[in-house]
């Protein structure tokens, strides 16, 4: 089901499979505007032993969005007990440039590229 959406993007949350899928183009104005997405991500950590964040359909993300993802990964790392998988796409250029940084923040993270 679609949990959040705005101009050009949607966030779907499947509680049964523990999957959050973000699609479209995300250029929100600063960490504050990312707060609803941030809360959805961080609240899911405690609710699932394993969580998949599917970004393969996320064509663009600004640096505030990258900071939001990093904060989520750091929270998951510090929480422990929730295995994180991030799915990217090799045909979306920014992901090949920036997603690997998340792995450094959380070495246990599984990062895959379709």
């Amino acid at each position, binding site marked *: 089901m679609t949990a959040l959406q705005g101009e050009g993007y949607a966030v779907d949350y499947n509680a049964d499979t523990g999957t959050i899928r973000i699609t479209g183009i995300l250029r929100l104005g600063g960490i504050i505007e990312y707060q609803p997405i941030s809360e959805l991500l961080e609240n899911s950590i405690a609710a699932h032993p394993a969580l998949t964040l599917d970004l393969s359909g996320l064509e663009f993300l600004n640096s505030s969005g*990258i*900071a939001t993802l990093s904060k989520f990964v*750091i929270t998951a790392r510090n929480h422990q007990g929730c295995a994180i998988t991030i799915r990217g796409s090799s045909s979306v250029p920014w992901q090949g*440039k*920036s997603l690997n*940084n998340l792995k450094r923040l959380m070495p246990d993270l599984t990062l895959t590229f379709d």
Partner: protein
Amino acid sequence: MTTEQYGDFQDIPSRLNGHVESLDLSFWTSSIPLKQRWRNNGLSADFLGDYVTTFFPLDESDSATKIRQAEIRSAVSYIANELLENAMKFSADSAGIPVSMRMYLLGNQIMLMESNGANIEQAAKLQTFIQQILSEDPYELYFRKMEEKATASAESGSGLGLLTMINDYGAKLAWRLESVENAVYVSTQVNLVI
């Protein structure tokens, strides 16, 4: 402060003798509400990204050119958007200087140069950050800031956008800060070698 330069700031006019392509966008940040203006950042950045692909045409028989074109478009769009977002956040129209974004194609180099007016306080903050970028490993600085940001309350102006340009896109950054009446004329150059 009179004029300070950081990094390898290039004097564009001296390089314009040759055959150079450029695009120039300018606007006043206060002419429409920030919320509407913010949307314009993305449109302008995507336009610059699309425009630059003209100079890196597709070779249908070579799939590598398609990947390369997509990467150049994405890099220009990302960098231009970050520069414009920073300009919206940290410029002062009261300085009487519009925000301008110029893109130059200089051989195997794409240069994005963003200029804006800033008040003295904004300029001082930027200067502190520039000195940090130039004196520390930008990669280590990036991760340290991410860790700080994850535990501290939301703050803006941590320079993560500039750091990702350097770390993720291999861009070279340079700045010029020029004192004008009670304000500072700030120019940021981002160079991408392609």
